């Protein structure tokens, strides 16, 4: 009884084959069942996430958050869902109906699809394909399409402008993200998720912490969360690409964004924190998802912490940060890790980890030096005298013009 998922699957397979169905049909039915169970589970976690997010933001802002609806406000998200469902669905004049309706579906569906490759336990994974890491990148890029379609279909200048900026930000940050995803693939020699988890004898966060940091920063930018949320800037009146969406369609965008954050946390936990690895997980596979979700929520907590601590970054600062800092850093890290890994092929694990960790920290230290020098020049540049309309020492009399 320690592996309930596979036991139930085998039992169902037995029942279905005793009914006389062919092998292919059984696979199909089990796959459909698996998809429905996984998607439902993920959506229920999504609703829980709304509550977690609201309680966390409240605590960060020194208040309590929802606590009226049910014990500790736990029924609040359900109340929100019901409210969104009964709101009127307004479509702006001149909007492209089909694309307007399709965009929120694409936004949520792409996030759901990512859960197909997350390994929950040594024996429980949706689809253990050997190109899982690139699959994640592929599905993420389809999500980008959904946003630009949403902005276009709204027939609204601000939505379109917001959509353009969002897509420019998202495709820009995809580059360091793909490079940071390449580094664990390089160390594990495979793109399959189960293989990467199984290869993490020390967790990769202790071997290549800088890659984890780069992936973390790029993922926050991909999600469109603060400090990179110039696209949906909650405190500003023009809300970006989903300004014309009402009711449940807006709810899908919002829930999709939160679920995307948890999905990305689960992926970072899988690639860098060892996924389902933990004590006793080989004997009792059911502990695997428990460990995975603990680690995923830890990363999610970090994402929330960053969100509620930093101010918003301007779009030109954000894109400059990506192209001039993160991308060269990620490429340099890739070169260093590749050469070191090949040079240390026969070294034992402890020395290997120490050398890699040392190289990472060296790169971080060098980057800090460069950043400090850059900050110094920037400070000098900003403190320069700028032309003013009137010199500050001018007397009031001279201004008024005494004869």
């Amino acid at each position, binding site marked *: 009884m320690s592996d309930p998922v596979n036991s139930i699957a085998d039992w169902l397979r037995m029942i279905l084959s005793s009914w006389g169905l062919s092998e292919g049909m059984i696979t199909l039915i089990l796959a459909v069942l698996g998809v429905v169970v996984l998607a439902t589970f993920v959506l229920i976690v999504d609703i829980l996430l709304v509550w977690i997010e609201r309680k966390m933001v409240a605590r960060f802002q020194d208040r309590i958050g929802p606590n009226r609806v049910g014990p500790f406000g736990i029924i609040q998200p359900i109340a929100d869902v019901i409210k969104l469902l009964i709101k009127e669905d307004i479509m702006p004049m001149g909007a492209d109906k089909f694309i307007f309706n399709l965009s929120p579906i*694409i936004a949520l569906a792409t996030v759901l699809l990512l859960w197909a490759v997350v390994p929950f336990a040594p024996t429980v994974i949706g689809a253990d394909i050997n190109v899982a890491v690139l699959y994640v990148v592929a599905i993420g890029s389809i999500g980008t399409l959904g946003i630009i379609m949403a902005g276009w279909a709204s027939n609204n200048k601000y939505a379109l402008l917001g959509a353009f900026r969002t897509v420019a930000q998202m495709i820009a940050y995809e580059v360091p993200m793909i490079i940071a995803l390449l580094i664990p693939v390089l160390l594990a020699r495979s793109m399959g998720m189960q293989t990467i988890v199984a290869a993490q004898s020390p967790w990769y966060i202790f071997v290549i912490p800088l890659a984890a940091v780069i992936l973390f920063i790029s993922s926050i930018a991909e999600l469109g969360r603060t400090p990179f949320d110039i696209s949906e800037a909650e405190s500003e009146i023009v809300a970006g690409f989903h300004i014309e969406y009402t009711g449940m369609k807006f709810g899908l965008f919002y829930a999709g964004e939160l679920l995307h954050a948890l999905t990305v946390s689960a992926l970072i936990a899988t690639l860098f924190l060892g996924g389902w690895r933990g004590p006793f997980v080989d004997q009792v596979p059911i502990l695997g998802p428990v460990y995975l979700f603990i680690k995923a929520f830890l990363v999610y907590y970090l994402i929330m912490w960053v969100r509620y601590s930093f101010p918003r970054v301007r779009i030109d600062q954000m894109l400059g940060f990506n192209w001039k800092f993160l991308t060269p850093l990620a490429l340099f890290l890739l070169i260093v890790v590749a050469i070191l890994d090949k040079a240390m092929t026969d070294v034992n694990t402890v020395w290997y980890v120490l050398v890699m960790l040392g190289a990472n920290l060296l790169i971080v230290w060098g980057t800090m030096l460069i950043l400090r020098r850059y900050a110094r020049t920037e400070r000098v540049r900003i403190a320069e005298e700028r032309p003013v309309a009137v010199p500050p020492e001018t007397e009031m009399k001279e201004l008024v013009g005494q004869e």
Partner: protein
Amino acid sequence: MPDDWIFIGIFLLLAPVFPAAAILIPRLIAPRKPNALKSETYECGIETHGETWVQFKAQYYIFALVFLIFDIEIVFLYPWAVAFDNLPMFAVLEGVLFILILVAGLLYTWRKGVLEWV
């Protein structure tokens, strides 16, 4: 292995069903009273002025192009990374050379001032 792709194929077909259901339910239970004022596009509270279009800013296109080049480059590197065990050191250096050529391209665009968002 094909079983996994069947799972993904079915997931691809079924994943849009959940959000589609979420959109169709309001169609049954939500009020529907369109009027001209509600359907106007939002422009900070005033009436819209002019067609909906975006000022042509070459910057968007250039960023998308730079992204495309780097995307292709990194996609080339994935098989190189997976086959790392079978590669002697000079093959690793060949991959590093590949990366360095494109870093040169990045430096070129940086010096040209293409990466500024004006």
